């Protein structure tokens, strides 16, 4: 088969449920395919996953390729990479997208290396556009523009892959918006064969403990986030109290998570969760682009910081220059007073 202009999404599932990030990518993939006037295909490896295929058609797929095998029941790098690599070589997609989950970030580079193509991690936007190469002075039409913060989040880079196919990228959960399913859509569901080599089973999963997340940042209407300005783990108590008084979730900057002040699942930003709440309170967060990339679309932003020049103030709707230890309890008290 010759090269196509088709857009593929690797669909991740666990215990019969499609991952949210995959559904978000289906929505984005549909937009890209429409712009390219081509097809969106979903690629779904697993065991007993055929039942998920019709939902993927409703989510925008023109074709669903599903592979079923008992060795694909739990995610493991090599069997999954074998399935993907064979399909890519045979059907030649133009674009291949993965969620930047612990599965996608393990699988995508393995596949990219096997098919010798380029891969861009943690994109915050994907567009179709033209590119004039400085290398060979040629103009490449309709490439995937892979946009991501770079250099610790201090720059925004647009990466392209002019000559190698597929053009591959990963995207974090929450970055792309998920569109509702349309049950009237039509698409083809195709079961594809899979074959393995003995070396594919070098790794065995002995046990897996996955907790349901208790932090629901993505859907939260109100988020109160703390950064390095909160000082220490006790300082986060003020953040938690305010969040509780507002009926919101607790978020955090990467710096606060890296410093061990709070668990990673609270992290908002490019390498954490992207959020769009009605109200976002940034307490003691300076506002590196890394963080802002994950919260700038909040409807209202309140920033509290002792440094009047902190970048977060430039995107805040309400600026409070002051000490967290005073400001947060005042807000909590005022809210409790209102609730009476």
């Amino acid at each position, binding site marked *: 088969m010759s090269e196509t202009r088709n857009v593929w999404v690797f669909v991740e599932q666990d215990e019969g449920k499609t991952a949210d990030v995959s559904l978000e990518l289906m929505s984005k993939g549909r937009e890209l395919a429409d712009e390219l006037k081509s097809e969106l295909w979903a690629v779904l490896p697993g065991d007993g996953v055929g039942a998920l295929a019709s939902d993927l058609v409703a989510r925008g797929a023109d074709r669903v390729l599903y592979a079923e095998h008992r060795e694909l029941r739990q995610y493991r*790098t090599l069997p999954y990479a074998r399935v993907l690599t064979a399909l890519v070589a045979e059907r030649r997609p133009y674009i291949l997208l993965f969620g930047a*989950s*612990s599965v996608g*970030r*393990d699988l995508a*580079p*393995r596949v*990219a*290396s096997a098919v010798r193509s380029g*891969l*861009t*991690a*943690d994109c915050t936007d994907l567009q179709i556009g033209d*590119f004039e*190469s400085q*290398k060979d002075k040629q103009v490449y039409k309709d490439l995937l523009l892979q946009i991501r913060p*770079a*250099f*610790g989040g*201090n*720059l*925004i*880079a*647009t*990466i*392209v*892959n*002019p*000559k190698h196919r597929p053009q591959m990228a990963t995207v974090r959960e929450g970055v792309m918006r998920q569109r509702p399913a349309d049950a009237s859509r039509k698409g083809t569901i195709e079961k594809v064969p899979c074959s393995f080599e003995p*070396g594919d089973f*070098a*790794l065995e*999963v*002995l*046990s*897996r*403990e*996955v*907790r349901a997340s208790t932090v629901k940042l993505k859907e939260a209407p109100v988020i109160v986030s703390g950064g390095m300005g909160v000082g220490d783990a006790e300082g986060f108590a003020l953040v938690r109290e305010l969040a509780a008084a507002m*009926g919101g979730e607790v978020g955090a900057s990467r710096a606060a998570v*890296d410093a061990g002040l709070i668990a990673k*699942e609270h992290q908002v930003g490019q*390498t954490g969760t992207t959020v769009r709440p*009605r109200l976002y309170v940034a307490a003691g967060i300076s506002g590196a682009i890394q963080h802002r990339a994950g919260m700038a679309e909040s409807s*209202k*932003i*309140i920033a509290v910081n002792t440094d009047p020049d902190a*970048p977060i103030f*430039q*995107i*805040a*709707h*309400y*600026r*409070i220059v*002051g000490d967290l230890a*005073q400001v947060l309890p005042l*807000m909590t008290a*005022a809210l409790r007073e*209102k609730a009476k």
Partner: protein
Amino acid sequence: MPFRSIVLVKQVPDTKNITGDAMTPEGTVNRAALPAVFNPEDLNALEMALRIKDREGGEVVVLTMGPPSATEVLREALYRGADRAILLTDRKFAGADTLATSYTLACAIGKIGAFDFVFAGRQAIDGDTAQVGPQTAEKLGIPQITYAESIESVEGGHVVVRRALDRGSELVRCSLPCLLTVVGSAPAARPASVRRRIAYKRDAGIESWTAADIGAEEARLGMAGSPTQVHKINFVVLEGTESKDVKPTAEGIAALVDELVREYVIG
């Protein structure tokens, strides 16, 4: 049973501590203004390799690709307990993306010869891609264990490893040789030893290899071997939002809360 481990390390600009001089007015990076550091998670990877050597004996080889100044991280690794250090340096390696980098590293590992483990940090703080580890494993044709947090046991040609997942963890058993990428929550690296620092001070015996030394195909190296290109770089411009200043007083805050409730933002 002695094991041979190869640890992939990288010298990176310290992107976590960007100062005012780090960006030029044109929005490009002024690398000279940024201190170069040992990529943090590569230190966790080094420690994991050293612990295997402590327990089972063997050798720890550190490998890096970079300019001659990258020997600093190799020295640091020797001070902390590595046995042998190799620098891959050649103009032909310049401008490599993760695919070309992993090819180069795999060629060098081929020249080092037989090994049991390859270790690397999960990702480097200048790119945060987490791609070079898995891509190197693929080039070597060996299994990968990403997000490794601890090694539980090594026996009978297998290793049992605990991996950190997005929400939880996983215990896996894998045949050797294999490649592990190590996360920052793994044990921190031991400090440099004064004795080793003195021993290596004058001559660290760092080997330096070029593209010709590792028998690499030139077309797969550096910029020529990199599928991805940077189309453009934008300096982050903050767009001002219409904003109100709120006084950090009880009255100021109460008025803010009133406004939020009145406009149905909260409550």
